[in-house]
């Protein structure tokens, strides 16, 4: 009679999300992600500066297509992300509760709020132009029209807390307006970010629009802040010291910088449109009347 043996668990090693693919870190490094009790959860890749460089390249390549897509199309894709995220609800709840601090019920609310957040931003795609654009009275025989345009490639240091809702709340406003982004996920709780990458990969989102790096923000963010081909940086998840370093580095090519919030953010609150306007340019065109 055979002895009953316990099934060997599959110890996962996750990878990065760059250009729509899931490569290992160029450095070959990984780190152990543990639960709040110290139990092994998975291995995550520890991205290096070269992974960040590759991710910027992928984001830059994706930018013309994504910013050139119709607002309606971008909204549809964001809505699709929300649908796909909903389908993974149980997995997200398990990953959030494993990190501790919240129970299953609360984690469920976080996931639901993330879905709602995506749907909310999806709706903004074809409305932001109406809110921020204007036709300007000028002293001459011209039309003068202003419209918001995406900034370009945006680096995002995702919040360390609120692993899913916080992450969705920083990515969605950046991409809905046509930017592409490189996101550094929460170092302590990267699993929801990795699962979100799997959601994004199956959501009709063109490869490279969102690139997700796991690892140390302190190591990677300065490289992104100094990168001459990055147009903006969101420092929400950076600690004060890192934020100052990054802002100084970002000055070289006049990146738009979104500083970290002073107070602890309640991600469940109404986000407002500030996160979208932070990475928009205003394009103004003069148009002669009567031709």
């Amino acid at each position, binding site marked *: 009679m055979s002895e009953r043996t316990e099934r060997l668990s599959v110890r996962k090693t996750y990878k990065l999300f760059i250009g729509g693919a899931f490569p290992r870190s160029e450095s070959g490094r990984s780190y152990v992600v543990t639960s709040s009790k110290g139990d092994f959860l998975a291995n995550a890749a520890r991205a290096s500066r070269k992974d960040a*460089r590759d991710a*910027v390249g992928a984001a830059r390549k994706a930018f013309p297509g994504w910013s050139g897509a119709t607002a309606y199309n971008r909204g549809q894709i964001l809505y699709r992300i929300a649908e796909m995220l909903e389908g993974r609800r149980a997995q997200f709840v398990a990953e959030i509760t494993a990190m501790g601090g919240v129970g299953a019920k609360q984690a469920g609310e976080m996931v639901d709020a993330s879905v709602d957040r995506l749907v909310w931003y999806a709706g903004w795609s074809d409305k932001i132009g109406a809110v921020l654009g204007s036709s300007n009275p000028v002293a001459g025989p011209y039309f003068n029209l202003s419209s918001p345009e995406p900034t370009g490639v945006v680096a995002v240091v995702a919040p360390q807390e609120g692993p899913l809702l916080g992450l969705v709340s920083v990515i969605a406003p950046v991409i809905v307006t046509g930017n592409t982004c490189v996101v550094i996920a929460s170092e302590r709780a990267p699993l929801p970010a990795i699962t979100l990458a799997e959601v994004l990969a199956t959501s009709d989102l063109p490869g490279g629009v969102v690139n997700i790096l796991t690892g140390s923000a302190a190591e990677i963010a300065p*490289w992104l802040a*100094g*990168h*001459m*081909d*990055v147009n903006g940086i969101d420092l929400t998840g950076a600690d004060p010291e890192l934020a100052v370093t990054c802002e100084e*580095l970002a000055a*070289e*090519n006049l990146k738009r910088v979104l500083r970290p919030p002073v107070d602890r953010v309640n991600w469940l609150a109404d986000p407002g449109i500030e996160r979208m306007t932070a990475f928009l340019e205003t394009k103004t065109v003069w148009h002669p009347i009567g031709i």
Partner: protein
Amino acid sequence: MTTPLAEVASSPSTLRAFLHGLPGVDRVGADARAAMLGTRSIKTTAKKQAIDMAIGMVDLTTLEGADTPGKVRAMCAKAVRPDPTDSSVPPVAAVCVYPDLVATAVEALAGSGVKVASVATSFPSGRSSLEVKVADTSLAVAAGAAEIDMVIDRGAFLAGDYLKVYEEIVATKEACGDSHLKVILETGELATYDNVRRASWLAMIAGADFIKTSTGKVSPAATLPVTLVMLEAVRDFLAATGRKVGVKPAGGIRTTKDAIKYLVLVNETAGPDWLHADWFRLGASSLLNDLLMQRQKMATGRYAGPDYFTLD
């Protein structure tokens, strides 16, 4: 080799016998060797040197139907001073244009030391009569081209009419006068490495000063293994005849990493004697910006962006 090299082209049969008598290329071996050399790690100071060396070897090329004198002049300015913000960047080796724009380039580059190369002989297909090809070459030479990049007749080569190819190269070489002749083999159309080796020898026997992989209009263009085979050919040709011939991979070399792989390949195959713009060139357009970006990254410590360099 039973027939002396001077006499192999005396008849179609001796030429054929000679070319088919060359040892075959071990395809798997060549691929593996090129891939292995491609893994060499060149960092810090060595990388800095390699980048400057590669910049000095670039044949900055524009071969589009839409080329204008203005575009050629802009490219020439870039060739002389690749990075306007940094005077320590060396000029490139040459600019490469169509024959009708040679005069423009010569005027723009006068006194700079950057050479003007011109494609000729019904580039890129090479499908015309010998008279037209020679006239095409003479036009470019008369306009002041110091280097002529000719294409071989691949149709004749693949049909086995080696003597026709040989005679065309000889005739073009004659039309070149003092100008250097680079012979484009268009390896992407030659199908096998054996053919690449044969075409290399054929071109060298006929008097080529350089052998060049590709026109850049056919995919695949330059690859590492093909360049390896050609580098072996020039090395062996020097040993057999005492005449040194240069090599120019062209097309598809876009990144600094690629360029450095080629330099490693040259050093390890033909030897360090070939690591000079007189003997090795890189035919490229977008490569130069990547080299400049890498150079700036090494100088400033921050990744460079393409917005800060001129468009080709």
